[in-house]
């Protein structure tokens, strides 16, 4: 006769070797002979590389001073960066007008933070302000020419300021243009479709360097003197078109991943094409391709360094120019490390925010 147990047996704690520090080490670092060897090699490399790098950059570095004589130790000479920092940030913008740049960036910083942080009120209003009003304010702050602000020609713009202006305008315009192009490419209307396809394939098929070079060297030859457009503006348009093409393909990937039933359901409810796109398809498609969108943004941000070939002094170009200063010869490593860390911090922040956004927008549907 068999015995039927009616109550479930109690859960037992897991064996000690599978939990805690030892369990973690065993599972992740020493799970097999090969893995143990790799772990040891890794530890050895960390030991060999990290302490010297930290020593150079932090503990043995020189931080204060005004001339190269302050740099006496073996470590990095951050005095170089410190002395030049204003130029690195503002390029050749007149120092008396620095406040305008600072104001413009502080404003956009507050606006973006307002929009990105979850618990702030009146997001729609602030968003509309950021999209429609802020760009006008920023234009007059940076360029001047109204409200008693003296004009600062764009050739004086440079450094981190120029990098950020190029990157934010690039993102600001390439995102909506990319969405329109992606919709156009999937449209059943032949004209919209062919325009989109030609645009995307053209801009995606040429290197950004060529685009910038054409915009700064070739274009002026074909346009009469009085119709010349500002060089920075031409570069901006080049970057925007180039990145829009990439953005369009990323967004198209998302659109294609949405099941046909979604747009059918929207149609059956009587939603028009644009309403169905706005409320049903795009929110889902864009959410799916957040990694791709951020990838494109990060690429765009770093690609702005290419403007140095057409003589615009972005952050990298300004720092490289400083290497030529006879008083500061030989500090290129510090300069490059500084530039690299600025780029890394910016790109890493974008990446982290995108991960947060993905989690926040996940509504638990299985697909």
């Amino acid at each position: 006769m068999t015995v039927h147990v009616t109550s479930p047996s109690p859960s037992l704690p897991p064996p000690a070797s599978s939990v805690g520090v030892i369990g973690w080490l065993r599972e992740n670092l020493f799970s097999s002979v090969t893995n143990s060897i790799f772990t040891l090699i890794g530890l050895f490399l960390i030991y060999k590389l990290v302490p010297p790098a930290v020593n150079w950059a932090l503990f043995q570095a020189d931080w204060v001073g005004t001339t190269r004589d302050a740099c006496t130790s073996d470590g990095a000479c951050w005095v170089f960066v410190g002395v030049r920092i204003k130029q690195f940030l503002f390029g050749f913008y007149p120092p008396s007008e620095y406040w305008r740049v600072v104001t413009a960036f502080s404003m956009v910083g507050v606006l973006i933070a307002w929009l990105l942080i979850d618990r702030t009120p009146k997001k729609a209003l602030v968003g509309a302000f950021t999209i429609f009003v802020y760009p006008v304010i920023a234009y007059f702050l940076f360029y001047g020419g109204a409200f008693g602000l003296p004009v600062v020609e764009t050739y004086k713009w440079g450094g981190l300021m120029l990098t950020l202006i190029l990157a934010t305008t690039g993102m600001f315009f390439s995102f909506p243009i990319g969405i329109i192009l992606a919709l156009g490419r999937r449209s059943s209307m032949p004209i919209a479709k062919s325009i989109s396809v030609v645009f995307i394939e053209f801009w995606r098929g040429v290197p950004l360097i060529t685009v910038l070079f054409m915009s700064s060297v070739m274009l002026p030859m074909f346009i009469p003197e009085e119709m010349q457009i500002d060089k920075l503006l031409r570069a901006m348009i080049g970057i925007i078109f180039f990145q829009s093409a990439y953005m369009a393909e990323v967004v198209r990937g998302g659109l294609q991943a949405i099941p046909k039933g979604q747009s059918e359901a929207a149609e059956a409810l009587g939603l028009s094409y644009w309403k169905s796109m706005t409320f049903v398809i795009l929110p889902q498609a864009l959410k799916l391709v957040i990694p791709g969108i951020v990838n494109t943004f990060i690429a765009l941000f770093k690609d702005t360094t290419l403007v140095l070939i057409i003589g615009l002094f972005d952050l990298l170009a300004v720092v490289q120019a400083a290497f030529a200063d006879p008083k500061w010869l030989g500090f290129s490593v510090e300069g490059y490390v500084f530039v690299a860390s600025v780029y890394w911090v910016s790109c890493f922040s974008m990446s982290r925010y995108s991960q947060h956004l993905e989690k926040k927008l996940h509504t638990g549907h299985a697909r």
Partner: protein
Amino acid sequence: MTAAQAEQHNSDEVMVELRDVNKWYGDFHVLKNINLKVTKGERIIICGPSGCGKSTLIRCMNRLEEHQKGDIIVSGITLDDDLKHIDTVRRDIGMVFQQFNLFPHLTVMENCCLAPIWVQKKPRREAEATALQYLERVQIADQASKFPGQLSGGQQQRVAIARSLCMNPSIMLFDEPTSALDPEMIKEVLDVMVDLAHEGMTMLCVTHEMGFAKTVANRVLFMDAGEIIEENEPNEFFDNPQSDRTKLFLSQIL
């Protein structure tokens, strides 16, 4: 709505009329000379083997599919290339899909309010009140703030029905509404549909639920290879099928 009112709705007013409708997918002739008249309050069940064109037939009625020949007239409006006609018809005709097709990024409540707010231009409050009323009717009001992904298949399908009803349609199309459901969830969806039928809704339903067909249908259509082969009252249809193809089909599914 009372039963008496529901009776009154069974008038001769023609809600959907198809005249010699033909449709091709490329070379494939999927609908052949379909003629059909649906009067107000009628409940019509469409069945047939897979690929016979039954889904295509009802999807033509709200222009999710385009027919190439013949006329489709819904609530007095002819479906043609005029987008205004299509819009008007779609506002008056609700549809429930096999795969539910709820919008996964919106809550149940938002799913129900989207079209009333943006198509009918109802104020949000009013739309939400209506939605709640319909969600209560399909007994799912307590889940209103959840996302579709958190609901079972049967619950999702009931939300989909409520979402269609929120537009206050006078005709409902059901495209195999229970085919994607686990057996124990089929009943909860069918119960909702039976209620709807008793209230006098004009319904066209593609389904293989023959018990349901017997309970609610006024007419059963049997389709095969793009044609309506047989059309009869449910009892006659099941007990006394005329054509051989119908007999074969019924012997396979019953």
